């Protein structure tokens, strides 16, 4: 179906190759996940498979890529499109026409299908993706999740044998992201469509995968089924391990699970799940879960709810904040929220729940139509796309030296901001909004800062945010990634339909949910409020010890 034979590729103007001597083959009907850290060459694999490399991007290309019998050196992306549908990260640039129906018809028209075949192809793609009700909608009115589904339907119209996807869930909330992955699995199982999926959040897609290709600095490091990949990752590339795999590995349990179901099966086999009736996991709070200055447990944090109950002054206070669109719906509905100095709060919720709107109100970019927002000083806001803050030709011109040094970018002064990695750009943009003031801002707000970041970059970001909180700023982060929320936050606010519907300690909110829960919490069923693999492993070890104690 797809074969890479000793492929080496260097982008035009790049100093080092993006792919180095890569060889692998994908069989018909396989579901293959492509993994790797940022800059490892994952996206280039997709671009090479769909023919954009080298035909569109130029550069130096060596080796051979064949897709369904078409050699990409001789056949361009247009011809390969007849056998392989492609979907990239940003749904906004994936849709080129005004209505959903026209968008789905466009690739079929380009292939010269007749009117009846086009109508059928459009209808079938819409039904397969569950977007038949959107066919006559304007693409400009669709949400991010809807737009991504439409783009996927456009890629699938005409039933290509292969679909190539480059981080299609990066801009989706956990619900929409999971739905998209399971939709791909259904297409794979029911239509026999071969799926090649590039994804950072492996815990989301490994249960659906037949094979994993892991890349490291352009080289293929691992080509194996998910379980063997996890064993390789544990030894060679720990940042690629899934939370469930880390949980079991740290608890000394084998084999590494590819998903929640397998992890729970392993725990059951060891008598560590309550439904086996041996001796359930302890549900007592974890050691160290007391909130303290840097903790994220229960108890005293409850004082933060309801606003104004604490004697501590608020760093940021939302008091009955409404945001109502003229002639439209209300984006915020009477939000009451208080953040104390040094507090680290994660704001979670579906796309369109009002998270970004709330952050804009915090920074004064929007004014409430009712209610008030008060801050004890300056509010720094980092919006979703860090590139929007990078306006100059040199890193050194973007932010003062002290701010760059605090972001760990003091050695990159002469580099072009666009040449930085995703994580570095995020840190530089944060330096731009923080500035070099001696006194920290009263509050620092970030909107989806983890998009496209690998685990190492997320850990760096979490450490930086903890540092800001330690310096006295309240930190409020809107985030779709529960794993990041668990690492960074001590309190989580779940927003739905423009108002908070849950507000509590990280353990309380993220351990008890399903979509808005970490994988560790899902494996352990929320026991003990454990959210991260190390906490979960600690809980498992204590339970095992307790079982062995007479």
């Amino acid at each position: 179906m797809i074969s890479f034979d000793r492929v080496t590729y260097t982008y035009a103007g790049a100093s080092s190759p993006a792919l180095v001597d890569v060889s692998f083959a994908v069989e018909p009907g396989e579901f293959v996940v492509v993994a790797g850290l940022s800059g490892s060459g994952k996206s280039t694999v997709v671009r090479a498979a769909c023919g954009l490399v080298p035909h569109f991007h130029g550069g130096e290309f060596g080796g051979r890529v064949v897709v369904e019998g078409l050699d990409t050196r001789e056949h361009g992306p247009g011809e390969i499109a007849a056998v392989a549908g492609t979907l990239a990260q940003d749904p906004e640039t994936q849709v080129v026409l005004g209505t959903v129906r026209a968008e789905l018809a466009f690739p079929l028209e380009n292939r010269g299908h007749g009117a009846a075949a086009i109508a059928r192809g459009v209808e079938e793609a819409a039904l397969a993706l569950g977007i038949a009700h959107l066919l006559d909608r304007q693409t400009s009115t669709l949400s991010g999740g809807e737009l991504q589904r439409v783009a996927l339907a456009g890629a699938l119209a005409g039933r290509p044998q292969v679909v190539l996807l480059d981080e299609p869930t990066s801009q989706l909330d956990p619900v929409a992201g999971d739905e998209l992955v399971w939709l791909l699995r259904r297409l794979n199982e029911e239509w026999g469509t071969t799926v090649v999926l590039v994804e950072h959040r492996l815990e989301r897609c490994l249960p659906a995968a037949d094979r994993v290709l892991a890349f490291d600095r352009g080289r293929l490091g691992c080509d194996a089924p998910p379980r063997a990949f996890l064993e390789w990752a544990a030894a060679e590339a720990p940042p690629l391990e899934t939370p469930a795999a880390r949980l079991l590995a740290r608890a000394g349990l084998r084999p590494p699970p590819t998903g929640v179901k397998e992890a729970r099966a392993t725990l059951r086999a060891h008598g560590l799940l309550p439904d086996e009736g041996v001796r359930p996991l302890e549900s007592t709070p974890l050691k160290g879960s007391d909130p303290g200055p840097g903790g994220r447990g229960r108890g005293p944090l409850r004082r933060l709810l309801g606003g104004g109950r604490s004697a501590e002054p608020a760093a940021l206070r939302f008091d009955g904040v409404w945001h109502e669109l003229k002639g439209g719906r209300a984006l915020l509905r009477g939000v009451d929220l208080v953040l104390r100095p040094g507090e680290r709060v994660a704001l979670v919720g579906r796309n369109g729940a009002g998270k970004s709107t709330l952050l804009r109100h915090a920074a004064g970019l929007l004014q409430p139509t009712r209610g008030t927002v008060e801050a004890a000083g300056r509010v720094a806001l980092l919006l979703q796309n860090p590139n929007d803050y990078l306006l100059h030709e040199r890193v050194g011109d973007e932010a003062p030296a002290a701010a760059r040094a605090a972001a760990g970018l003091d050695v990159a002064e002469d580099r072009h901001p666009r040449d930085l990695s995703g994580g570095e750009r995020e840190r530089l943009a944060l330096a731009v909004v923080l500035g070099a003031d001696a006194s920290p801002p009263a509050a620092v707000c970030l909107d989806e800062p983890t998009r496209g970041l690998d685990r190492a970059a997320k850990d760096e970001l979490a450490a930086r945010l903890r540092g800001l909180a330690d310096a006295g700023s309240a930190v409020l982060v809107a985030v779709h990634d529960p794993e990041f929320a668990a690492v960074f936050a001590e309190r989580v606010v779940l927003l739905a339909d423009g108002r908070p519907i849950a507000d509590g300690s990280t353990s309380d909110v993220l351990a008890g949910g399903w979509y808005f829960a970490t994988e560790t919490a899902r494996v352990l069923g929320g026991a003990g409020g454990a959210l991260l693999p190390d906490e979960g492993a600690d809980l498992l070890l204590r339970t095992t010890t307790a079982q062995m104690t007479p």
Partner: protein
Amino acid sequence: MIYERRASPMHAARAAASGAWCVALAGAALAFHHPVVLGALLVAVLGGAAGARVGGEVVRILRFALPFALFVALINPLISRNGLTVIARLGEVPPFGELDITLEALAYGATFGLRLLVVVLAFAVATYAVDPDEVLRLFRRVSFRSALTAALAVRLVPVLHSDARRLAEARRCRADGEASRMAVLRAVTAGALDRATDVAATLEVRGYATGGRSQAAGRPRSRHDRWFMASAAAVVALAVGAKAGGIAAFQAFPSLEMPVGAAELVLAAAFVVVALLPFLDRRGIAP
């Protein structure tokens, strides 16, 4: 500037019919200088915008277009040396030299501004109420690449608008607040290139370059197609008939001749009536 399907007779008609209506009104405006006729066409266009439920959007365009129309109206008497009826002697005014304002030049400028306004607003109605995808289908038979380029350019407008808004927001969030508007403009321009590249890549992987040029079946003909086609034809017929019959003739120079009789008034009323009749039939207009 985004087309959005709404519950109106104009949106219910196919692009060929609703587009023809807009072009007919713009064409009629270009054919006449008579202010009564131009005024009637302006009423027809604004009435049509209201009937198509895009009145608010078109009024916003009107706010932008009005200063341009006034500029045209006022600049003409300053640069025109024609006309016999001097209404003001301004003497030596650099860079225009000896300046006499004539009634004829003023009237000609005013009608030209009015004409500009009608044409701009007719195309504004087309932008908001004529499906651009159907327009693309109409023109792709003639010149596929040009039509696609035009359609994509139109699509990039809202995308770049949202990019510019995001960058402006980011600029407000900078701690130093020092980023110049030029830096933002440069970033938007660079972003536009990135966007164009992304869209071009999408076109490639959707098979645009393969050369197949079939078309999906369009919407079935509806009663509204007939109404708007008939209305457009009637507007053209009225314009041709009036021109042939010498009705609503207008001459600015050397002296102003602008008859306003029963024929001109009937013609103006006829333009309004035939242009707005299609909006009365509101059956089957839901999207």
